[in-house]
């Protein structure tokens, strides 16, 4: 049971904040004189929706980024630049593209050398475009729209997958899981939220599933937010699909799952793609609902020692180990590597270095980094399943930590 003190822990840490607050305070307009360092810091601006409906993912993204920055600094900073430390500038996009873009201007004036953000693709698009004017390297930590890397901008990079690749991976994984069980599933119903994230991904999934003999018999769009899913549940129930595929944000994800259970809707599996609400917290809070639900998402490699260590650290800090944490972490790693190999903060050099990055991210189930037009093609999304209170990778088999329970039984 949670104690009141537990509930306050994370926020107290944020408020007192240790390194992060003093660093941020110093980088704000207050110009507190800092002790002369051996080398000038490399400034990285973080732009996230710290206030507004996406405040929680934003907090997780900041946390992961700041953890990476602290680790890199502890290990000696950017050695090719005389051990220059990384310094974070914190920005709040307030979920609005115009504010995100304004933050870019602000950070540019503050002499930022790289930027990271923004969780929402709309904000990421506006912010990275603003950054492009000054050629500031921009690392997308979370933002699935493929438009982000299709504009021909040489300053935008993304370590994790966009929905194009994720859809393809999701279909492949489902095909594999289905085949291993003797191909019992044939029909799919997609339930998606109405904006670009849900609609775009749903379209891609419909196409991607075809070669795997899985037919999307219905696509149900719902608004953001949706107050109740009873009708949708009934609609699904009468259509009797083998697979239900939710593509939506956390609140609706959980609500839909609960409603499907309440209405006793039967299906072989709930197989979500970029399921916003599928994470350790979901499995903790609603174990009976979560049991055997499958999601395809950014996920860490539980077989890696560094991944396990990062998870332990995060949970010791009173936080859930959600994908935002490691996506932000590896995005900082990308930037740091870019500075390291460029040996300078000159944007052309850094962008060129980022474009040829080959970092190996041990805690992710990725191949070696290979940037194609700013998109890392060594990335992949994996299929994860809640099994007996924990989350296991069930596909692709190379990274699987457990066999899939499919049909869910």
């Amino acid at each position, binding site marked *: 049971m949670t104690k009141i003190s537990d509930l306050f822990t994370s926020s107290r840490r944020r408020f007192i904040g240790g390194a992060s607050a003093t660093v941020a305070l110093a980088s704000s307009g*207050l110009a507190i004189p800092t002790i002369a360092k051996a080398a000038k810091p490399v400034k990285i601006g973080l732009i996230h929706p710290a206030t507004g409906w996406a405040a929680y993912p934003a907090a997780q993204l900041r946390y992961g980024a700041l953890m990476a920055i602290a680790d890199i600094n502890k290990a000696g900073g950017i050695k090719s630049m005389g051990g220059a430390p990384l310094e974070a500038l914190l920005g*709040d996009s307030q979920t609005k593209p115009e504010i995100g873009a304004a933050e870019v*201007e602000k950070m540019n*004036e503050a002499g930022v050398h790289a930027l990271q953000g923004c969780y929402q693709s*709309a904000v990421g698009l506006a912010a990275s*475009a603003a950054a492009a*004017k000054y050629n500031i390297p921009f690392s997308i930590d979370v933002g699935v729209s493929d438009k982000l890397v299709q504009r021909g901008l040489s300053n935008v990079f993304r370590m994790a997958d966009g929905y194009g690749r994720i859809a393809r991976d999701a279909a492949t994984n489902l095909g594999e899981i289905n085949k291993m069980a003797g191909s019992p599933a044939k029909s799919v119903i997609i339930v998606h939220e*109405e904006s670009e994230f849900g609609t775009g991904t749903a379209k891609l999934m419909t196409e991607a599933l075809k070669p795997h003999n899985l037919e999307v018999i219905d696509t149900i769009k719902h*608004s*953001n937010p949706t107050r109740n899913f009873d009708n949708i549940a009934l609609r699904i129930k009468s259509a009797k699909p083998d697979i239900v595929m939710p593509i939506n944000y956390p609140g609706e994800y959980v609500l839909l799952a609960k409603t499907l259970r309440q209405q006793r809707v039967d299906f072989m599996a709930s197989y979500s793609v970029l399921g916003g609400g599928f994470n350790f917290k979901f499995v903790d809070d609603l174990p009976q609902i979560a049991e055997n639900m499958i999601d395809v998402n950014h996920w860490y490699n539980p077989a890696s020692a560094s991944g396990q260590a990062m998870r332990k650290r995060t949970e010791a800090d009173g936080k859930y180990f959600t994908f935002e944490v490691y996506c932000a972490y590896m995005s900082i790693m990308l930037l740091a590597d870019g500075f390291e190999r460029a040996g300078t903060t000159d944007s052309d050099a850094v962008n060129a270095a980022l474009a040829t990055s080959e970092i190996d991210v041990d805690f992710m189930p990725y191949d070696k980094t290979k940037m194609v037009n700013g998109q890392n093609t060594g990335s992949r999304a994996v299929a994860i399943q809640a099994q007996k209170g924990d989350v296991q990778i069930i596909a692709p088999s190379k990274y699987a930590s457990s066999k899939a329970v499919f049909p869910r039984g």
Partner: protein
Amino acid sequence: MTVIGKLKLPKAANGKSAGRKSMIFLLIAAVVTLVAPTFITNKFYLDVLTLIFFTAYIGQSWNILGGYAGQFSFGGVMFFGTGAYTSTILLTTFGIPPIIGIFAAVAAGAILGLIVGYMSFRAGLRGSYFALITLAFAELLRVLANSVEFTGGGVGLFLTYAPSLKNLQFDTPTGFYYFSLILLAISIAVAIWLERSRFGAQLAAIRENEDAAEALGIDTLRCKIYAIMIMGAMGGAAGTFYAQKYLYLDPPIAYSIALSVEMLLVTIVGGMGTVFGPLVGAFVLHMVNEITRNFIDTPGLSMIVYGVILIFIISYLPNGLMGLFRKRQDVLGGSLETTKNELESKDA
């Protein structure tokens, strides 16, 4: 002018000296803002000013209907969104450049104002009822925009980055600064015109007591519809500005309730029914937001301070910030406002 019963219709411009003072202030302000970019090399400050001008502009549109005509609206964003979609669809589907599209956006806003105004005012809606029906219209449009193909539905519309004057896109903040400044100047001109014109006096009469105004022979329906059409026209252009600056549009952005609220917020805080109220309000609120965020990093904490300051301002300056600058009679509040409140509470 005349005194009728308890009501004193305001003079168009209250005395020569006040008028001249305003013009001098205006002239100085105009010069300062025009040359500002040469002195302000900090692009962030330019961007902040641009956003402030934009907010002041769209606040002024609300002011025309809400401050001058006394009809509060909660759905002002509908003109913004419709204008944005109009010019963007014309661009993406028909290749019509935004420099022409913006006029279509203005027209679309005005037409929407005509439709909503006619339906609502004809039905005799006033006060909170009118405010709420505008909200309903805005929500209606948002839901529709989500479901219709030509608006891109929930996916939205993407614009390509192609800076040029005909695209109303600029590769430096300076370009958008002047764009928003021009819009702001137009809105201030409209407000000044309103204060000096017969039409403005009619709106003021409607604001103070609509029934009395009708009895005086003013065609209140027509005047209110004109007012909402002006608001709509202005809102439409704002939509095009936004679309060209941020290059992406979807229903939650185009029809966001937050923008409807912001319009009325900056105007009421700055001073309703004044020429510079929305600008002052936009400036002060934006500065408060920026400064609190600068000093307080923790998400939420800075906004709490912002909320407290907001309540503070409105409690101690009930006529808005412009109340600090103007004498009581000049501010369209003061004694007239109390009279209105008393009358209103009587038939409440």
